[in-house]
């Protein structure tokens, strides 16, 4: 599914307007706040759902080929994180939903489950 569609359907906030997400495909998702867990288990092409918002999440995303990070619970990434994400071409997103709700919603979209 196109990232653009997920952003629209879930009404996500985009923190990195300079990163072009028109053609990004999302093939799965992973929800975790532990960086080593994401390093171990998140598949490339996933959207990563987390409350972490410091600089190092961009490094993790870049290494794991995670095109987009969704920061939940209305939390806002640090300025340095946004700058790094813009520079590295990682899409940073935000939502007022918590990680459980956001994950459920995106899961339904990706699996084509109605009522999300």
């Amino acid at each position, binding site marked *: 599914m196109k990232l653009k569609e997920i952003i629209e359907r879930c009404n996500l906030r985009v923190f990195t307007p300079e990163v072009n997400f028109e053609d990004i495909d999302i093939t799965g998702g992973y929800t975790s*706040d532990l*960086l*080593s867990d994401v390093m*171990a288990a998140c598949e490339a092409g996933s959207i990563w759902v987390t409350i972490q918002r410091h600089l190092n999440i961009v490094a*993790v995303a*870049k*290494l794991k080929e995670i095109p987009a990070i969704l920061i939940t619970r209305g939390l806002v990434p640090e300025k340095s994180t946004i700058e790094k994400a813009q520079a590295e071409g990682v899409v940073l997103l935000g939502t007022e939903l918590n990680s459980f709700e956001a994950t459920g919603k995106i899961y339904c979209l990706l699996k084509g489950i109605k009522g999300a």
Partner: protein
Amino acid sequence: MMIQDTVSETNKFRFVYLIKPRDFSNAGDASANVKAELQKHGIEPDVIRRVSIICFEAEMNIVLYTKGGKLIVEVDDQKVDILALDKGPGIEDIELVMTPGYSTAPEWALEYGFGAGMGLPNIKNNSDVFEIESEVGKGTIVHSIVYRRKNEIKGNN
């Protein structure tokens, strides 16, 4: 850039990175650079995937827990050889730190999503050869090898 020196021979190249302690604004850069270099040299994607995990965890360990150190990555036709060296404080009980879930991370590191107790196990799980040596007061050496042509090297019979 953190590359200290790059030695290039035919079919063999080496990258050395100095890793500073508590340097979070640059943490992950060495691993990102390793990944970019391996991609440039056409190394197999699965090897790059594993080396990236190993380098990131080794780099973060140096940043979080040590007085600084080095990450040395050597690539040839057969393998990628990763050496992470630090200046201490060293590990008292290696078996304990290899236990998944065990961590000595301080509170602030936990809040940043570090200290899951998965770093060294992640390195081991992605390595074909894994060695760790440590001396309290001196430092720790983590050595890891990822083979590029596994079937040829390990035999496929």
